[in-house]
């Protein structure tokens, strides 16, 4: 109790009531459970014994959740999760969205999820060199036009100069992975967190990885392929609050979130589920947002 009072004294009066964390997806998805695990652990690291409530605000590809947070009172009792480039791309496409990412009070980065350039386990395409020599367009699978998977597929192929076509309309990443295993198309860009179990089972094979350095000599990365500027292609999960969050509150939240992601109990959960975190503080997160925004602006022609 005395300890709690000391902690309370150093962090000011905040927080006095329960904190809501907005999850921009349906309950039950992989992303939802990930955030709920962080939220549970966050309770142990906040002063004043308050609860952290997860609130699902799904819809419009994550944009509804983002605008919920943007419009909330900047009192530290509403924060939210942002999935970039998912919420960034519509902003660059000048779709009316109801938020400005540059004004969000960024708190932490939870993790970076690189893209694996994947083919079917028994595909005749053995390396990135083979994709240019099929003698026909390479067929890819993705979710709808305007989705991150579609845009990333376009960017990579245009930069590599490969003739290609995209089969769109898959319901989500696990659904086009199934399409890849079934042989609907030749290749797909799959985020690592989705791809991992299928890579381990040998159903699919990764030829290259974008968004991190490859540790496997058989798997190329952006540097090996001579396109280092594609090294930033990855899904990044960040937590932020409404614009104008007071500095002392955002400092308390940042500290607690970073501690939550280092929590031993949470680490056990990560290990059990095969999830990963690469925590970064608020300054790095804000920097990463503007870097990503610049990166995608270079590819404006694929955004529409």
């Amino acid at each position, binding site marked *: 109790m005395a300890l709690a009072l000391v902690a309370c004294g150093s962090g000011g009066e905040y927080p006095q009531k329960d904190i809501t964390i907005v999850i921009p997806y349906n309950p*039950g998805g992989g992303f939802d459970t990930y955030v709920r695990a962080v939220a549970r652990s966050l309770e142990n690291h906040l002063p004043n014994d308050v609860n952290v409530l997860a609130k699902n605000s799904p819809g419009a590809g994550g944009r509804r959740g983002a605008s919920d947070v943007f419009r909330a009172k900047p009192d530290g009792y509403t924060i939210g999760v942002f999935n970039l480039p998912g919420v960034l791309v519509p902003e660059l496409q000048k779709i009316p969205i109801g938020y400005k990412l540059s004004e969000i009070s960024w708190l932490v980065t939870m993790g970076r999820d690189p893209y694996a350039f994947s083919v079917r386990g028994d595909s005749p395409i053995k390396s990135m060199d083979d994709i240019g020599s099929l003698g026909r367009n390479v067929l890819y699978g993705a979710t709808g036009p305007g989705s991150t998977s579609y845009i990333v597929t376009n960017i990579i192929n245009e930069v590599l100069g490969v003739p290609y076509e995209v089969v*769109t309309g898959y319901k989500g990443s696990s659904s086009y992975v199934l399409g890849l295993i079934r042989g609907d198309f030749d290749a797909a860009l799959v985020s690592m967190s989705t791809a991992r179990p299928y890579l381990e*089972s040998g159903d699919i094979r990764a030829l290259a990885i974008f968004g991190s350095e490859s540790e496997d000599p058989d798997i190329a990365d952006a540097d090996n392929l001579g396109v280092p500027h594609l090294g930033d292609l990855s899904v990044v999960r960040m937590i932020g609050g409404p614009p104008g969050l007071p500095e002392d509150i955002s400092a308390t939240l940042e500290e607690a979130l970073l501690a939550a992601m280092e929590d031993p109990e949470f680490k056990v959960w990560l290990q059990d589920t095969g999830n990963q975190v690469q925590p970064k503080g608020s300054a790095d997160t804000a920097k990463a947002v503007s870097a990503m925004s610049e990166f995608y602006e270079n590819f404006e022609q694929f955004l529409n």
Partner: protein
Amino acid sequence: MIDLLSQAASDLLSLQTMLFLVLGVGVGLIFGVIPGLGGTTALAILLPLTFGMQVIDAFAMSGGIMGAVAMGGSISAILLNAPGTAPSAATCLDGYPLAKQGRAAEAIGAVATASPLGGLFGVLTLLLVLPLAREIVLLFGPPEFFLLAVFGIVTVAMSDSSNLLRGLIAAGVGLMLAFIGYDAVHGGVRFAFASDYLWDGIPLIPSLVGLFGMAEMIGLSIKGGTVAADTATVRVDGVLTGVRATLHNWKVVIRGSVIGTLIGAIPGVGGTVATFIAYSTTKKADRDPESFGTGRIEGVIAPESANNAKDSGALLPTLAFGIPGGAEMAVFLGILVLHGMQPGPAMFVDHIQDVYGLILALTFAAVLASIIGLLSVRWLAAITLVKGQILAPVVIAVSLVGVYAINSRPGDVVLAAVLGVLGHLMIRFDFPRLPLVIALILGETAERGFQQSMMIGQGDWRIFVHSPTSIVMVLLIFVSLSWSVVPYLRKRSSTHKSIPDS
């Protein structure tokens, strides 16, 4: 496998785990009975609570919910013509006419027998085909999905050969409704009339509540009286007649179970399609198809045996690939991930014992839900004796609150009301509502499957006969067409002949 099964059974039979199972069954029955709510809502609400539980307890509770929701949903389908859950909508077709004749208890007795039998059949099939799960799921690509959707729509729209044109018109309207909103393949928004609400398309549950529940309640309040036409004929002691009728019609039970398991296993198609196809196949195979819809007990038995069988089927793609067979399975997937299980090919290696535990929980739940359902049938059947002026506003209010509770969107309430009026008009002018619903459900699957097939096949139509599965689907469509068109043409030619004779 026997070792693993008995191990799983002994895990499940501990007092604590059984308590969670019973809790799940109770929650499932209640959420099933209230129109608009259902297994998806119940699982979503309880999802965070399972976090601190042991895996087997979480599975027992979710299995309890999934096994019991079907029973609850069918009770309101029969008594109120308001399907408590979407897959129970097919049970309305003959269940409600039975209730009107005062045979509600008999219908519920049939449900309580057919649904656990279907569940058991599904579980046995699941155990047998688990080793083949991957192969089965991989048989269905975009061309097969398209053909399956066409098969579903054709079978249902043309199931009544005396009313062929009206069935096709209703299916056409259903397709038009299905195409509203965002086109997932090409990214445009169609027919949304600049309304944000219509962006995501016409949602299924408000539509079902409107077309079935609301429509009937509008009719009831206009006509007055009670659901059972003659209160003197209501027999609440008919439960055993229903049980006997189900056992007597064991062929219908098996057919429904097979259809339920098969269609449940195809991701993205879902239980509602399974129960409807089971219904219309049974109707067609019957000697007297015309009498369906007027209160045939077989019309309850068929969809009900599919209703619980489909859960086992839907587990296949969920566990083997992490692709949920339906909305309920999508939430269940979250429970798996929460407990550190990554659904996918490795699931059957790493967590096979938990998988067996879940399968057993589903079985127990189906049986338990039936027993509880049967015990309470006497009180439930009394609902049909309540006067329309009292019943209609209560059911309408509860349904609309349920519809609103799903997504807190006022538009859902408006949609349910609008489709309620449409449904009422369809009853009055003798248009079947079933083809509209099935086309609304399958329209998106058909469209997506067709467009993706064309992209994959680079515009070549032969993509639709490229695999043995797709050839079988094409043949099934032709068989189904000739089944309905031939009697229709025969009837027409005989009426034509009779004109010069007279």
